């Protein structure tokens, strides 16, 4: 772009960077406060805690039954990832390759669950799931979480599939591959990066999805984020440090997957794709 050396431009740039810096400093300050507190023996009215300990982690592990919670969380998350992949990828393939009357309506159907906030559709959904007996157990939580993730997989996968040349598929057909063989030997390897990216993002989304899980989970089907909410909600009963230790465990589980996901996708591209 055009180089501008006027003072006002430089001042404006400096102001912008200050703004970015201020946001990032506060963000990391907030995260660091949680981490510091989780290792603190006693932290009242000082800059740093009086001493350091790791006992809050074992305390949190026992107090909040984190072993069970983590097990449930990963069962739910992996079920959601697997099912949304199984339903979403074929649907995305159909939508990327075929044009048919009513396609716009179908696309709208897939766009709505991503645009309507979870708490708005979550309450009627939870009502239906409670009346059919799904809610309160793991299957209900999985079903509720699939509502935004299936469309998410579809919308992320469509551009990925569209960029694969149809001639490759025709060639495979000429050599006698049936649809199943075509899918396993040709499409799947080509689509793998896209599928992986979409499913990793679904994983991160589901780990962090509070509202839908909160509305449909029973005592034995809570995920980590819902357990964390209840712990913060009932703060005062337990030491702040052990809640913070749990928060750190949650943070680590989520961030690991985010970092892995970001190796495959650029966040700006995802948003740019989703808006189409």
């Amino acid at each position, binding site marked *: 772009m055009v180089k501008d050396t006027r003072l006002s431009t430089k001042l404006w740039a400096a102001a912008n960077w200050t703004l970015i810096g201020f946001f990032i400093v506060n963000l990391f300050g907030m995260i660091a406060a949680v981490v510091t507190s989780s290792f603190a023996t006693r932290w009242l009215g000082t800059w740093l805690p009086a001493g350091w300990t790791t006992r809050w982690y074992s305390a949190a592990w026992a107090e909040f039954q984190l072993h069970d919670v983590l097990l449930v969380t990963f069962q739910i998350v992996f079920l959601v990832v697997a099912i949304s992949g199984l339903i979403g990828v074929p649907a995305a393939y*159909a939508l990327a390759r075929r044009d*048919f009357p009513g396609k716009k309506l179908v696309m709208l159907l897939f766009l709505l669950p991503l645009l309507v906030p979870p708490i708005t559709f979550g*309450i009627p959904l939870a009502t239906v799931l409670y009346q059919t007996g799904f809610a309160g157990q793991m299957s209900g939580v999985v079903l509720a979480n699939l509502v935004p993730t299936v469309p998410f997989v579809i919308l992320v996968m469509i551009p990925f599939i569209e960029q694969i040349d149809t001639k490759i598929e025709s060639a495979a057909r000429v050599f006698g591959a049936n649809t199943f063989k075509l899918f396993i030997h040709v499409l799947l390897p080509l689509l793998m990066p896209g599928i992986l990216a979409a499913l990793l993002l679904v994983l991160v989304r589901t780990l962090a999805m509070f509202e839908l899980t909160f509305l449909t989970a029973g005592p034995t089907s809570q995920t980590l984020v819902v357990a*964390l909410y209840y712990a913060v909600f009932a703060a005062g009963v337990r030491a*702040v440090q052990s809640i913070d230790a749990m928060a750190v465990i949650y943070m680590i589980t989520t961030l690991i997957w985010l970092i892995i996901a970001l190796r495959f996708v650029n966040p700006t591209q995802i948003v740019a794709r989703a808006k189409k």
Partner: protein
Amino acid sequence: MSTTDLSSIPLKQRLAARGYDGLTLLCVPAILFLLALFIYPFLYGLVLSFEPKQGGMFANYQRFFSDSFLYGTIGTTLWLALPVTIATLLLAIPIAFRVRLMKNQRLLTTILVIPITLGTVLVAQGLLNYLGPQGWFNRVLITAGIISTPVKLLHNYWGVMLSLVITGFPFTFLLTLSYLSGIDPALEQAGATLGAGPWERFKHILFPLLLPGLAITFCLSFVQAFSVFPSAVLLGAPAGPTRVISIAAYQAAFEEYDYSMASAVAMIMGMVQLAIVVVVLAARGMLYRGPAGGGKG
């Protein structure tokens, strides 16, 4: 087919010609799934909201709009969601303009995505530590001599407001940045060649082209902020100043077990969101919507 009579062509081929064949059927499971778990619950909720526990068809809605404890939640939520949306947009626009010029945006965008990933619950817990009277934020301000007593930022309006800005900003920023990247730099360069300064280029070229995208961004951010729930409970004063509409819906459903009333509140929540979105999109319809992508448009 020797004859041109349409009916003699097998149905399968006629359908295939319009785009319906075996492959199209692959999207049927997804459609059925969403009809069953998204559209049906919505319609079910709508019908249920007209079948109150007692009273006539509109009893739930009458109750909502006659009880200030209930209808007041609309105002409370708007009073949170609108300032938050405007604040995140005002933050996001200059930062997106800055980041657009950077060569390596990846690290910054990654840092900015972190709050989305952490989610509202963790941000709430973090802010309880960070913004508290003994937290680092107040300590820094006191040490710097800006304030003499700690600012009260928790369990009131500001706590919810700040947490919404933190969790909402990354999304607004990424959307704005992607819209901005869609504007051809040649347009701005042409302006510069003709002698327009940075402010004039922004005012006359970039901002008008960005405005339709900003309208969409506004809608999406607003809808997210309007459905605030965990942070309003954990960081706000859920009984008073931050009793948002989702708390009213939740209490009706899971504390009073009045699913009919809860559905009515959820429908009202959806209607308010829809109303704001329609207003913004109608205003957007009056804006310039020509090509801005250079070549692609």
